[in-house]
């Protein structure tokens, strides 16, 4: 029988991020499907009571917590130690946790200290015959494996957007606080805070309905033999303002900033999607001026509805990958789209 531990960490305001509720749904489903399995929860943060109250109605047998100033922010040494202590204290054989940047950094260290194993980017599971198998991608979302492990504890970091967020009742939870002693060695790193990349404005919106992907074609010479980078940037930013879309970019476009070519100042490497970028999940995606084959197209692997604007009808970004390909000049199309959209937002964020 598996002993399942659901783990989450708080945000700076003490609440849980959306992905934590998604993974709670996964933990509950897993507990239900694995005969005889039990579920506990573990929380990490400066103060975990608000978070514990938010999941009070989920039915975890107990809620463990590691709290205090040392655990308010995301630091490898303190997080890995806290995670190790929570997993050990719970006696968990299976651990299920959100693949946040914080847990992605620290969980492998905890797994190592427990002589356990961890799998990341988990995007689904099966429980045939009472045995857990997980699904995860390999080779940058180019192939999907279904696999299982015998080693315990087995720690799963779940990707976002796979499960619906749990929406049960809140309450007043009883948290069993677990002490974690940190050595001075574990405090050599101080978190200073957060900062935005050096771009003209923030354009990455993970919760947006629409992903707008800009390709390198925006900065190439147009039909008049000239580049129109400023105009391209204005068209894109106008569109983002009207649609509240998130901005993604092909590798070739963001690489131009390090190659001395004309660039869109609203872009950084953080916008990059694809083989060496992110693979965001949005309901819709509109790709413009993108070129490339399979490795780059993984950038919109998890986009449900896809459309593209491109001058090439055989464009690898679109043929067989998009639902609709508009063979047209993206400058003209996006200018007209912005005009028709008027001044108001046409889409609200989720």
């Amino acid at each position: 029988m598996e002993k399942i531990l659901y783990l989450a960490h708080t945000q700076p305001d003490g609440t849980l991020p959306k992905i934590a509720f998604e993974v709670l749904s996964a933990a509950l489903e897993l507990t239900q499907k694995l005969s005889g399995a039990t579920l506990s929860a573990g929380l990490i943060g400066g103060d975990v009571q608000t978070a514990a109250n938010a999941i009070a109605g989920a039915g975890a047998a107990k809620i463990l917590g590691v709290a205090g100033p040392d655990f308010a922010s995301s630091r490898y040494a303190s997080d890995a130690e806290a995670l190790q202590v929570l997993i050990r204290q719970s006696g968990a054989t299976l651990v299920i946790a959100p693949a946040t940047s914080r847990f992605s950094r620290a969980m492998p260290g905890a797994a190592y200290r427990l002589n356990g194993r961890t799998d990341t980017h988990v995007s689904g599971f099966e429980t045939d015959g009472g045995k857990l198998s997980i699904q995860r991608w390999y080779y940058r979302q180019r192939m999907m494996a279904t696999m299982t492990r015998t080693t315990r504890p087995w720690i799963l970091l779940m990707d976002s957007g796979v499960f619906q967020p749990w929406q049960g009742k809140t309450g007043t939870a009883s948290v069993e606080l677990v002490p974690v002693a940190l050595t001075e060695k574990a405090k050599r790193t101080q978190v200073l805070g957060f900062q935005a990349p050096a771009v003209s404005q923030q354009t990455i919106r993970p919760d947006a309905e629409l992903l707008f992907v800009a390709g390198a074609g925006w900065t190439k010479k147009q039909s008049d033999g000239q580049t129109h980078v400023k105009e391209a940037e204005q068209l894109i930013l106008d569109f983002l303002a009207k649609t509240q879309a998130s901005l993604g970019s092909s590798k070739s476009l963001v690489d131009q900033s390090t190659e001395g070519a004309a660039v869109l100042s609203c872009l950084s490497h953080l916008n990059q999607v694809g083989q060496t970028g992110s693979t965001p999940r949005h309901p819709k995606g509109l790709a413009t001026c993108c070129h490339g084959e399979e490795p780059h197209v993984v950038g919109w692997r998890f986009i449900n509805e896809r459309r593209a604007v491109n001058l090439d009808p055989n464009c690898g970004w679109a043929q067989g990958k998009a639902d609709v390909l508009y063979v047209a000049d993206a400058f003209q199309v996006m200018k007209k789209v912005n005009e028709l959209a008027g001044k108001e937002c046409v889409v609200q964020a989720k």
Partner: protein
Amino acid sequence: MSSGFHIVVCGSLVPDPLQTLEPIAGPAGPALKNEMMLPSVLDPWAAHALYEAAHLAKTAAGSKVWLVSLGPKAKLQQLMMTIAQKAPFELVVVDGSASGFTDPFEAAAALASAIEKIPGLDRSRLLVFGGCASASRDASVTMQMIGEQLGIADQFLGVDELTVQPSGAFKVLERIEGGQYQASECAGAPAVLAWATGNLPEPPNNPQVGMANMRGIMPALQKAQPAKVGAEGVTFAKVELPQQKRETRIVKDVPVEEIAKEIITWIKG
């Protein structure tokens, strides 16, 4: 930082991203069709780590860079023909599987053991660099486990910027959710930094650097230690390519206004 850093970059080969990949069932688990024949490149994020290491070594006097690679040595030899011209480094080869289907725990153990054996490595000045994930396993796990085996408590994942101060302390920018960075300050080496793309372009080929590197590369390949890297305790039920070819509707020779209207309707819907 008067004495500089000892920078160990962990990076191996992955199939050239432009190659078609097809999973097959191998004798020891899943593998890629024609895996030994596929052209390889240095894992992209690890390559960024190597460029950042070379840049740091240039600016911090007394620094040295090692590249520790786990992979079939015959394929590593081919890869070094191009990588050797990019940045000065001393190669350490661990002769084993570079398959994405091996377990990061086992890969980390092999790499950490190789690092521990590097002659003259000053662990108090050690910075272990690597990619934030490989383009094969894509787990974002291996670097942390290497750090654990080496007893390194300060670790960073998704690094885009490292700024070293005169005291040897350094500031790090790590990628986090929502297109933001987390800024941290670390008291100094030793530390593990798993890089995202960083801010440096790919260096141009430098034949002089290549010649200097090659003097050490062939002996390193000859001295390669074999390592058994697999996936103990893992059973793969299946590995398959996603079958989701879409029927793309091509809209051509249509006025821009009509296209724009259709896009707006679609976005609103």
